[in-house]
């Protein structure tokens, strides 16, 4: 249990059997009144947001969260498989991974967040490198970075790359936005 005084931005709490992260936190106290903790919270399962004001005597549940450091193994149907430090295999459904399922790299580290033993979030590195498997041939010598064309990586994920990027090039992708950052290596 947390007491209201423990609340702060980034803290994870449980409300109505759902895990929430506090995304905004304000301490307010009207003149001569009681302390109030005005929070905005994000449901970690659904992404929906909630506004809630806690009073000094309120108690808030602590969610059963556990984070495991793992490495990515391979894709298996609609799951992605990871291996933890004890060489135990963990399958995570692709809907939990969302867009990040396209950015998994074999043997790359990731952190899986479990809520009541159920994987709810997979955190991967901010930048990953992926090979371009499909794109129109680039205009030779055109190094402009502001003109973009569509391209695909192995998983089928589509992104825009500059004209000079060719099939087989290794590019760096920002996993927060899913966008091209720069070319890591020419093919």
């Amino acid at each position, binding site marked *: 249990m947390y007491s209201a005084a423990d609340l702060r931005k980034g803290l994870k709490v449980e409300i109505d059997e759902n895990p929430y992260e506090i995304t905004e936190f*304000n301490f307010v106290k009207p003149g*001569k009144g009681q*302390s109030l903790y005005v929070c905005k919270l994000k449901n970690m399962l659904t992404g929906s947001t909630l506004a809630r*004001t806690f009073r000094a005597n309120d108690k808030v549940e602590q969610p059963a969260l556990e984070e495991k450091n793992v490495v990515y193994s391979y894709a298996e149907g609609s799951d992605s498989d990871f291996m933890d430090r004890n060489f135990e295999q963990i399958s995570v459904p692709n809907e939990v991974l969302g867009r990040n399922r396209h950015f998994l790299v074999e043997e790359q580290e990731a952190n899986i967040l479990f809520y009541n033993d159920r994987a709810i979030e997979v955190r991967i590195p901010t930048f990953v490198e992926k090979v371009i498997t499909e794109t129109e041939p680039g205009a030779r010598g055109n190094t402009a970075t502001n003109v973009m064309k569509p391209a695909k990586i192995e998983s089928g994920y589509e992104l825009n790359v500059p004209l000079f990027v060719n099939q087989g090039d290794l590019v760096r992708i920002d996993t927060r936005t899913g966008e091209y950052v720069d070319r890591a290596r020419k093919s």
Partner: protein
Amino acid sequence: MSNWKKTRDRMAATRPAVEAKSEMLRAIRGYFLDNGFTEVETPVLLEFPALELNIDAERTSSGYLRTSPELAMKKLLAAGYERVFEVGPCFRRGERGALHNPEYTMLEWYRAHAGYMDVLADTRTLICRISQDVLGSTRITHGKNEIELDGDWETMTVAEAFTRFAGWNPVVAFDQERFELDLVSKVEPALSKERPVVLMDYPADVAALARLKPDNKSVAERWELYVGGVELANAFGELTDPEEQRVRFDICSVERVSQGRESYSIDEEFMEALGEMPPAAGVALGVDRLLMLLTDSQSLDDVLPFR
């Protein structure tokens, strides 16, 4: 980044505000000394902190740090001092936010034989003088708002404000829980940020140390000033009846204990003094909050070098 480097960066970033505060303190002293007030220094370390329902004192090995100089200043009034002011640090346990710091600078002044509306006039003159001395103008910019401190001040009773913005009248039927939640979520956000707003005549249930209005005992002679949406000052027509004061302290003490919080013993010297205190009015003003307004800051983070 190391702690010292963070502190050093904060000190550099807040330097204009620190310099403005230094000018503010000069303006505050100038105003009060020109108006016949005596600057006093009352104890910071107290045996008996003021008993208030929602204010917790920081405990030390030999007493408590003051949450306000109120009781000591009232003793001075009872001893015959007629116009006193004090500016200095006060401490409130667990209060930290954009508008709160556990240690902050409070200005309080008291006038014997004055009413709570007289000290509202003092407040206006004082704030205008501080702004004029620090900024060279009584016009301030705070966020999106331009505020003329020497322009119209909006005055509203708490009954009017709640009826208009929250749809009920706490003076007719008081509900502590609802009062505080609606004050924060409905009333305060609806108050004008373009001119100073005074909420006055609080329900008797939240009178704190204010006396009830002689011609309407359902409300207390208390006002709060908001500038740019920031609650800046609180004032009372002071309660001088020791019997009523004891009843209020007792209620407060019982309530604190029932909430599982520490209660404080009544300062009997204060109770005796209260019986000799002349009618008076007093104001408590948050100096760091006024500094935020004068330096166009949204948080105490931007004005306090140590935080």
